[in-house]
């Protein structure tokens, strides 16, 4: 496991040299087992930073806010933002670079390798701890997680509490960085698409019943959209109002905003939302699993993105988040793309 002091040292150095505006990392939270994103502006504040297996958030999502904020400023500070990224998070950066949403010089990337482990799932962990507060949590060398609470140390096999995304992760170290902490040890999962295959193996009716039950629960809080680093559009099809309104937009244009789906949280409309969210992430989702983590109703939305990841790989040999220079999945094609389904 990467040493916290090394991480602080890196963050402190760039803040001291005023090379970055601020560093986005993790700090202790007051609300539960997981940490909170931290925005460190002063070198002395790096003491707040933490690094342990609960550091689950994909912080690249905050680059969207940064970009919006910068666009509003009259004399924006042109320095980059420092950001701490794990393997999956770094692949989100690659996609953002590929799509030219950010420029390489906008970010100073402090990469942290998950090495042979990953991050823990809050729900799995809280079941083991039964409300006890964590004093310390770390990996040992043998794939265990050692949690210290007021009652002492507990050893839990990592596979029992790691987040699902980590159990299916294909690159557990950053693919892009300015500094890298930790080793690039690759841990190949047996089958990165296990969860998807489980659903695929169900009958048509069973699949429908599964999704019907899951999607009926959705309250359309849009947390799954809001947390996604790739959901950066100024205007989303699910919003009720045009955001791209300018002084020249006519009343007619405003009135004609197409309502693709209704606000009613009923199955048919929830379905449109989830289908579109998933398809808009085809070839872009890098499986950080944030969408699924934040859902208050525990809807397994990651299965949708993972399905598209699998299809992109199978049909088009496409992997997202490794090469910022590759054309995006749906703005490219190969002559030999399958067409056996076409009449």
């Amino acid at each position, binding site marked *: 496991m990467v040493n916290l002091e090394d991480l602080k040292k890196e963050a402190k150095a760039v803040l001291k040299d005023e090379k970055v505006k601020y560093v986005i990392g993790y700090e202790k939270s007051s*609300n539960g087992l997981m940490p909170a994103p931290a925005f460190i502006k002063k070198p002395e504040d790096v003491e707040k930073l933490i690094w342990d297996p609960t550091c689950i958030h994909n912080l690249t999502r905050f680059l969207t806010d940064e970009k919006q904020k910068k666009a509003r400023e009259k004399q924006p500070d042109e320095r980059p933002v420092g950001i701490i990224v794990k393997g999956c998070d770094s692949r989100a950066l690659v996609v953002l670079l590929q799509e030219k949403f950010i420029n390489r010089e906008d970010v100073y990337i402090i990469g942290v390798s998950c090495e042979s482990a990953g991050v823990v799932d809050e729900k799995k962990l809280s079941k083991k701890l039964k409300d006890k507060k964590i004093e310390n949590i770390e990996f040992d060398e043998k794939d265990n997680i050692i949690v210290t609470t007021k009652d002492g140390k507990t050893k839990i096999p990592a596979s029992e509490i790691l987040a699902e995304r980590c159990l299916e992760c294909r690159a557990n170290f950053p693919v892009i960085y300015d500094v890298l902490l930790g080793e690039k040890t690759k841990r190949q999962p047996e089958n990165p698409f296990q969860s998807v295959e489980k659903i695929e193996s169900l009958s048509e009716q069973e699949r429908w019943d599964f999704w019907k039950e899951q999607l009926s629960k959705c309250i359309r809080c849009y947390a799954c959209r809001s947390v996604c680093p790739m959901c950066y559009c100024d205007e989303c099809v699910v919003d009720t109002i045009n955001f791209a309104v300018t002084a020249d937009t006519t009343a007619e244009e405003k009135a004609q905003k197409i309502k693709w789906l209704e606000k009613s949280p009923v199955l048919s409309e929830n379905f449109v939302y989830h289908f579109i969210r998933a398809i808009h992430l085809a070839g872009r989702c890098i499986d950080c699993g944030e969408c699924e983590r934040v859902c208050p109703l525990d809807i397994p939305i990651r299965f949708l993105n993972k399905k598209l990841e699998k299809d992109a790989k199978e049909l088009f040999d496409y992997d997202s988040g490794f090469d910022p220079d590759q054309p995006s999945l749906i703005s490219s094609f190969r002559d030999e793309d399958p067409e056996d389904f076409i009449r």
Partner: protein
Amino acid sequence: MEKVLAKKSFPQWVKTLSSYKIFAPIEKEDLWSYELIEKPEQINLDYLNTVLSPKKIIFPQREVYLEFFASNEEGIEVKELLPDEKPSVIFGVRPCDAKALTLTDKVFGGDFEDLYYWNRRKQTALVGLSCSTPPSPNCFCLTVDGSPFSKDGLDVLMTDLGDKYFVETLTKKGEQLVNSAKTLFKAPTEKDKKNLAKIQQDAKKKITRQVENIKKVPPQLKEMFDSPLWDEESMSCIQCGICTYLCPTCHCFDINDEIDSSSPLKGKRIRTWDNCQFPDFTMHSSGHNPRPDKASRLRQRIMHKFQYFVELYKNYQCTGCGRCISQCPVGIDIIEVLDKVSDYGA
């Protein structure tokens, strides 16, 4: 009226209420939610707290106001669709969630009564379950004038005494429920009463979270509209709707026409929950947005709950259920924010 009910008689009591629709917390894959019950045996009162409060029954996320359709004689005909509810009982209501309904009562009552809300509200009896152990590590009801055995808004309050429930009947509606199975309820013994007092005392001690100086919050807020605090505190906010949709007291809504057919015209006017944390909530059709950033939206959430509502209704618009704290994906903690507000400028 004070009674005790043996736990094993509880299903029998529910059975005698066959003329009511019964709702109670149900668990599915580790999530608790209030659902319509078919058999009394389904009810399990060993739950912590539900993701959504009983707000979702009284003030459902989707409500059909009216239907409209083109008709030959009258041009467009409109049919009002008021909910015509059978009497209902919700079991296992937490005191904070019941109190929350007394707050939404103020909003949907007063000079203009919202019939959609009240038709359900009046037909629904709330049977509470006091919190001998706080259902969430983030409970802070004591701060906001509540308590783990508060009776506000309830018709009956039950307290778990081990093998029986201590049952306090608080209203006429509640009496009717208890009277439907008179023989099952016994008078409490002195020991039961002592037990109850002890449980209540302990329960209070088990609540670990509180806002240090809540009294200072409303006056402080009045001066803090332009404070940089909102920027700092909202840095990590992702603008999702979790905190407000899950809040038992939040009540904002939107009204839309859903068109089923444009010719001949046919459709419905529908109310759905809306959410002050969404960027489009305050968007004007001119393209101007008076709450343009997340700082202004966090400010709105806090101000509404701890300043505007206090001024209007002499109550905090928060019952300390802790949902917004536990469920926030980025750890924004209303208690921390309020602590910072009360200390601000000191």
